[in-house]
């Protein structure tokens, strides 16, 4: 049973250089309690996909397609009604914990606001609830910390506060956009454990946006790989990691250094990610792809559902990785 359904979502931005397609016909479903990772490099459209779903696009952006939460269409929904859902049933944690808190307000004010607005609590009850939430995300000295200003807290503490705010209305879906990228590795490990606990204890669905395949491997059930605004591969984490079908996914996995296997020479993807203003014809990945054929230059491969709920958008049907070894 999916509680979140995205169908044919496209996002366009009007810029001085014309229309830019940041997200191109993306579809996916999220079931209750599952963790899904959206993986991609900068400019792949992974953040814009979820921002569009929550009506948070920049002014020059517009979304088409359909985003349904529990059957209700979110795209084009009035702000008033949308606000009943976002921050309440769907909430979001952003990458930079330094800039997503208001520097002029105490932590207590920022947390109480959410609770009074969405849950109609009075200030006293809301404060008690806020402290309970900070305890839940294992922030030490919650009753002390809540009286402080954001600048008095460390990066990890701020990210915990952000997560506590996002969770305070017991959302059904938590969207986390690169939530650990700005954190040190020991603190990142703490955060990932925290996320794992949430999905297990509260049945929250987690959409995790990240470029870090190590993070994906440790936490996600399914993953979706995006390139130049399109979804190129979708599947459960184990199968996608151990037998990737799309050459881009294959390339990403072989570009990532493994701490256990330092002698292995990395096999980077040639070339650079394309500019969205000037996408290659056909399959946007073809100039960097070791398997590209004539057809890839002309025709755009569609995301085709294969068995076990896996999908792949690529014309090449042979085995990946053989090319190098046979040469």
């Amino acid at each position, binding site marked *: 049973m999916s509680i979140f359904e995205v169908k044919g979502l496209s996002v366009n931005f009007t810029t001085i250089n014309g229309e830019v397609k940041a997200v191109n016909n993306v579809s996916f479903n999220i079931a209750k309690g599952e963790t899904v990772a959206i993986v991609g490099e900068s400019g792949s459209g992974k953040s814009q996909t979820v921002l569009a779903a929550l009506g948070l696009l920049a002014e020059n952006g517009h979304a088409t397609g359909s985003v349904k939460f529990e059957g209700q269409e979110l795209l084009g929904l009035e702000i008033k009604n949308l606000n009943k859902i976002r921050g309440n049933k769907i909430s979001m944690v952003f990458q930079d914990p330094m800039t997503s808190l208001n520097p002029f307000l105490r932590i207590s004010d920022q947390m109480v606001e959410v609770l009074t607005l969405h849950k109609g609590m009075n200030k006293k009850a809301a404060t008690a609830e806020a402290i309970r939430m900070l305890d839940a995300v294992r922030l030490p000295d919650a009753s002390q910390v809540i009286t402080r200003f954001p600048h008095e807290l460390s990066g990890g503490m701020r990210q915990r506060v952000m997560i506590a705010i996002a969770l305070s209305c017991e959302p059904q879906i938590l969207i986390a956009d690169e939530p650990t990228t700005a954190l040190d590795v020991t603190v*990142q*490990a703490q955060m990932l454990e925290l996320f794992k606990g949430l999905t297990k204890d509260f049945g929250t669905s987690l959409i995790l946006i990240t470029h870090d395949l190590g993070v994906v491997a440790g936490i996600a059930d399914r993953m979706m790989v995006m390139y130049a605004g399109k979804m190129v591969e979708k599947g459960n984490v184990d199968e996608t990691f151990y037998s990737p079908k799309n050459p881009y996914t294959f390339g990403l996995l072989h570009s*990532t250094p493994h701490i256990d296997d330092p002698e292995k020479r990395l096999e980077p993807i040639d070339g650079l990610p394309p500019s969205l203003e000037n996408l290659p014809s056909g399959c946007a990945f073809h100039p960097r792809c070791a398997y590209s054929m004539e057809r890839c230059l002309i025709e755009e491969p569609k995301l085709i559902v294969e068995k076990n709920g896996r999908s792949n958008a690529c014309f090449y049907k042979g085995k990946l990785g053989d090319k190098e070894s046979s040469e």
Partner: protein
Amino acid sequence: MSNILLEVNDLKKTFPISGGMFVKKQTLTAIEDISFSLTKGETLGIVGESGCGKSTLGRCILQLLEPDSGQVVWLGDDLTKLGWRKMRPHRKDLQIIFQDPLASLNPRLTVGEIIADPLRSLMPQLNQAQRQQKVLAMMKSVGLLPEMISRFPHEFSGGQAQRIGIARALITEPKLIICDEPVSALDVSVQAQILNLLRDIKDEFGLTLIFISHDLSVVRHVSDRIMVLYLGRIAELASSGDLYDEPKHPYTKALLKAVPVPDPIKARERTIEGLTGEIPSPINPPSGCTFRTRCPMADKKCAKERPQIDDIGRGRLIACHHWRKG
């Protein structure tokens, strides 16, 4: 025996933090008690979390920052005693690659001018044509096309800009390059290209590298030896294999456990008994062993006494009272 290029002895650097009218002046100790030597041809990785002093150490070696005390002995000369003028002849041997590739390139100069700049100041004997020739050869070595020579930095992506930075560092034929988080700002697919390039140029030019990074997987991939810093001090220094296969310092152990592995089955098998808490402020570090506030093995002795840096054989250094217990 004269394989030792660089020797660092008891290096220390503090920064003053100016107080206000009612606030006491304080000092921040960025690095302290840092001693190590570097053999020709090796790559030393320096890892640690933010604020551990890894970048400060790199800059102190190059005399871009003036250390408070200690020595940086480069081929027999103590660089800290030389002063700017006498330091100059050494600059062509010691180069640096920075983290943010675009910010470290002058936006008003063309790629050719940027790469040739160190030649102009450090090898003034070369004429225009010789410089041009060297620049083109270097651009080829780092994977830049010759027609890019007259373009400006803003026309390049992060990965290509980093290639320009590498070419600029290599052009004076240095002996040592300090790479300060050279791939942290790059996308994964491009990061791998730059890591491979660094490996290749190291072999091609017979370089010695100091590779500073917060990413333990990346450091493991490139380094022969690794130094782990915590709040400005050496926690552990060992060969790459020893450190990863058999970490001895509790901080190294915790760091290695916290690194996410891009392998779902291995990732699930791991138990992350991660560290609690965060790095304390370097302005007011804990007494005794600075790691004790987060250490599972800490006891009273750790609060009172700062652990000595012990040489436990095979060039392995460790600073912990209790490493034998673990």
